[in-house]
């Protein structure tokens, strides 16, 4: 159990975000839950590639060979973080348009489709 503890805590963070998406009625709280899920998944990918007593994967000038952590998950997560930002901007733009039309952020009011 102790050797899998960081993975379990990462999963609990994911579940907090999932709870926010399912239960909350304020549109901004739903967007915050989406952001929390984003962070937890990026963290999980980097946790899988960590190796004990190793250093960052950047070579330096003094020719010293040292063990390194896995560089492949870091390359995947680097683009995933910026994509998460772009998707958050798109969702907030849609939320602002919804507010201009219905004058509230409450999704039970918006669902009535007053037009």
């Amino acid at each position, binding site marked *: 159990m102790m050797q899998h503890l960081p993975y379990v805590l990462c999963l609990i963070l994911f579940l907090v975000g999932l709870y926010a998406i399912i239960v909350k009625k304020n549109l901004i709280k739903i967007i915050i839950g989406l952001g929390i899920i984003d962070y937890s998944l990026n963290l999980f990918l980097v946790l899988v590639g960590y190796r004990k007593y190793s250093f960052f994967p950047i070579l330096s000038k003094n020719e010293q060979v040292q063990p390194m952590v896995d560089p492949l998950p870091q390359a995947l997560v680097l683009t995933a973080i910026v994509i998460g930002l772009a998707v958050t901007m798109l969702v907030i733009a849609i939320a*602002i348009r919804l507010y201009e039309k219905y004058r509230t952020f409450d999704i039970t009011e918006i669902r009535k489709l007053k037009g």
Partner: protein
Amino acid sequence: MKQKNNNPGMTLIVKTVTRLTVGLIMLYGLYITFHGHLTPGGGFAGGVILALSFIHLILAFGRDFVIKKFSEKVAGIFESIGAFLFLTIAVSGFLAGYFFMNIYGKGTPFKLFSAGIILPCNLSIMLKVGFGLFSAFLVLILFTSTNSKE
């Protein structure tokens, strides 16, 4: 809280400090992009820092002042130049092999102009990410400031 129409933006202290430091923030973003193959960073980090320097200008001086220098059309043109440059570098690999082949000279490692295809790619990604995020933020601010005056 409504802004007075004859003095947009923030107070005088913020404006003076912005005038002194916004050039340094842009220079830092360029530095992180150019040394992307030697130190941590790269095109994405440099592009977001470049976008943050423009957003700093918008927040301190108000939206109308920045629109006169950088309209939405100019930002869109720069973003398209970045994306087009990335594709050109990729297609130029066809001259010697396959798509995205690394055909520029490798040079000696640990110098600034080494590592073939990586430096021009980092530059084009910085242009694309920086100006794309800036134009998206500009459109969001237009909506906010127009409707908070009502």
